[in-house]
């Protein structure tokens, strides 16, 4: 039986940064660890598409098994997750980590690097308001935010969003903007005072994307292949940090292992897992266990270890609404082919209809195939193709993220090993009408008719099943150091320990908190 002082389960942002903080100690990372094909094209998306590459390009953009056609026949998933080269991100999850299909959307990743293989790189620190209800304060996380920033390299700017995201000290300059974004920012600057009075603040996103060389990594190359290729230059992926630590023998890494449960005794902790190659059961021994397998997988491991098929745990997620907006002056605009395809601008809305801040992330539609969205237009098929051609340069998609205070989803482990997700309340009303009115003042027009409230869970940002509290009770809460109640040495280092979720991508806080937890674990060894 393999053993280590500390076993970390999972290699996503949390698991990698927990291991990073413990590097040099006797640390073993256990992971299923699916990986993508590293031999991906490395040219600009539009240059590739103009080249008569035949079958090769078909394989890249559609896929030999027609993977990109997924949303025509099946329930909607993010265009990123359906593209051929990113299939590995969710591969095997429906078999190895099943979650019931129902009213709640979900994605589970068993890939090395986890969901960060398909992320847009959003890095937004929580502030004291966001941490209301948590037993920790911003000062507890600040040193770790700084450490993550130093390791990852984050771009951003000091602007009107600094009041929500902190100063841009230590950040790299922001990415180049496409014209639809620079127009919006220019108009916002002119009307800033009036818009701020109504609660709208616009600025540059904070992204784990390099605009300068950093830590031996090249800056982003503006190839616009984010939706088709893993491991983009400049876009941070935790698997690079993990691989470097393994290469330098700072941690040990065991892939092809699906952790199922743990048992704590006076001698330590025994971790039970399934070897994917042989199907045989395997066991590992450790003194401290850090679970960082992603909220759903971590919850499954904890419930399974307790053989608890009854308890329904609260699950937070941040609901999302898509608002397409058109700038009529940019209709028929020239192609901005060399731009980052994910977040272009961010905004925060704190107006009358917002009890807590809503965050908006604004995208162009330049990074996806036009076919991904052109049948959303109300015209005939030929009309839709023309609309996609001429409207795309003028199209701005605002992804409105809602805060979640209420944990309106419940999660339970079924006897069959399947996690059951149940939605308890109806959709949360958002400030669509107010936001549309404010964007109209900026010259961007939309309609509630074309706004789409995504299914609960579609943000793929879950948390809160094992919340950290100052006085944990029962078996499903954690203390301030994220040690699971009722255990001596089991720690949770992913978003399962978070409480109410602000309307922010919580990856940055997951990484920082994982380092904080690992720092504490180090002191107990």
């Amino acid at each position, binding site marked *: 039986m393999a053993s280590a002082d500390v076993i970390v389960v999972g290699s996503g942002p949390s698991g990698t940064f927990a291991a990073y903080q413990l590097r040099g100690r006797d640390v073993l990372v256990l992971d299923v660890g699916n990986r993508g094909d590293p031999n991906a094209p490395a040219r600009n998306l539009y240059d590739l598409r103009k080249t*008569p590459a035949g079958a090769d*390009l078909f394989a890249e953009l559609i896929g030999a098994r027609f993977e990109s056609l997924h949303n025509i026949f099946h329930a909607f998933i993010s265009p990123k997750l359906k593209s051929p080269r990113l299939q590995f991100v969710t591969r095997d999850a429906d078999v190895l980590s099943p979650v019931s299909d129902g009213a709640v959307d979900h994605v589970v990743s068993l890939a090395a690097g986890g969901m960060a293989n398909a992320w847009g790189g959003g890095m937004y620190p929580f502030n004291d308001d966001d941490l209301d209800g948590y037993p920790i304060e911003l000062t507890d996380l600040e040193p770790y935010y700084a450490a993550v920033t130093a390791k990852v390299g984050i771009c951003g700017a000091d602007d009107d969003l600094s009041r929500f995201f902190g100063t841009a000290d230590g950040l790299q300059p922001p990415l180049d903007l496409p014209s639809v974004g620079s127009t919006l920012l220019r108009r916002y600057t002119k009307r800033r005072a009036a818009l701020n009075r109504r609660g709208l603040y616009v600025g540059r996103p904070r992204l784990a994307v390099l605009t300068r060389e950093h830590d031996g990594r090249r800056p982003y190359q503006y190839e616009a292949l984010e939706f088709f290729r893993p491991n983009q230059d400049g876009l941070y992926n935790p698997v690079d940090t993990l691989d470097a630590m393994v290469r330098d023998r700072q941690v040990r890494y065991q892939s092809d292992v699906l952790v199922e449960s743990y048992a704590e005794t006076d001698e330590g902790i025994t971790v039970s897992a399934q070897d994917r190659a042989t199907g045989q059961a395997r066991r590992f021994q450790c003194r401290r266990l850090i679970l960082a397998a992603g909220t759903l997988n971590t919850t499954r491991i904890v419930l399974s270890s307790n053989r608890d098929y009854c308890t329904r745990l609260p699950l937070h997620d941040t609901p999302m609404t898509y608002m397409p907006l058109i700038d009529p002056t940019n209709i*028929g605009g020239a*192609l901005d082919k060399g731009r980052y395809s994910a977040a272009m601008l961010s905004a925060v809305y704190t107006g009358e209809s917002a009890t807590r801040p809503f965050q908006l992330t604004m995208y162009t539609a330049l990074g996806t195939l036009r076919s991904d969205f052109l049948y959303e237009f109300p015209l005939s098929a030929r009309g839709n193709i023309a609309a996609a051609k001429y409207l795309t340069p003028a199209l701005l998609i605002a992804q409105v993220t809602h805060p979640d205070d209420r944990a309106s989803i419940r999660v339970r482990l079924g006897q069959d090993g399947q996690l059951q997700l149940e939605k308890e309340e109806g959709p949360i009303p958002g400030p669509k009408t107010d936001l549309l009115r404010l964007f109209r003042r900026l010259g961007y027009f939309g309609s509630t008719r074309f706004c789409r409230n995504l299914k609960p869970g579609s943000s793929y940002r879950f948390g809160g099943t094992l919340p950290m509290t100052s006085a944990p009770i029962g078996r499903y809460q954690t203390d301030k150091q994220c040690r699971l109640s009722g255990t001596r040495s089991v720690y949770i280092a992913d978003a399962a320990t978070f409480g109410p979720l602000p309307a922010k991508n919580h990856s940055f806080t997951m990484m920082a908190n994982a380092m904080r937890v690992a720092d504490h674990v180090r002191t107990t060894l």
Partner: protein
Amino acid sequence: MPNERFRDEAPHIYRALFGGEAPESLRSLYTAALESAPLASWPEIDVCCLAAKGADLEAIELALRRRAPRNALSQRFQVMTYLAEVRAEHYGTFINEESRFVRGILALTTHTGRSFYKWLKGCRLLKVHGIG
């Protein structure tokens, strides 16, 4: 045989979308794509038969899509659109490289009017051909 049916209907779908003849390789890909996935069961539709009667498939597709976005004819149109979009010869059909404001406005205005006409026509064709 579904294989032959899909192969035979591919040129009609292509013509409705882009005009002209469908390349042979696209017919093969269209056939393989539809064989690999579950088409919606509604409505029962014979594309070749409708085309033989001279029916306007684009109009029928729009009328069906307005009733139910996920229907068997729109799915066929979407598959063909995806397959064509990634081909270099269709790059200019989908991508606007130069600044063309006036052309863009004209295209959108024309297609808005044309789509309204197609929708009315499609609604009538659904009744005439007993679809849906």
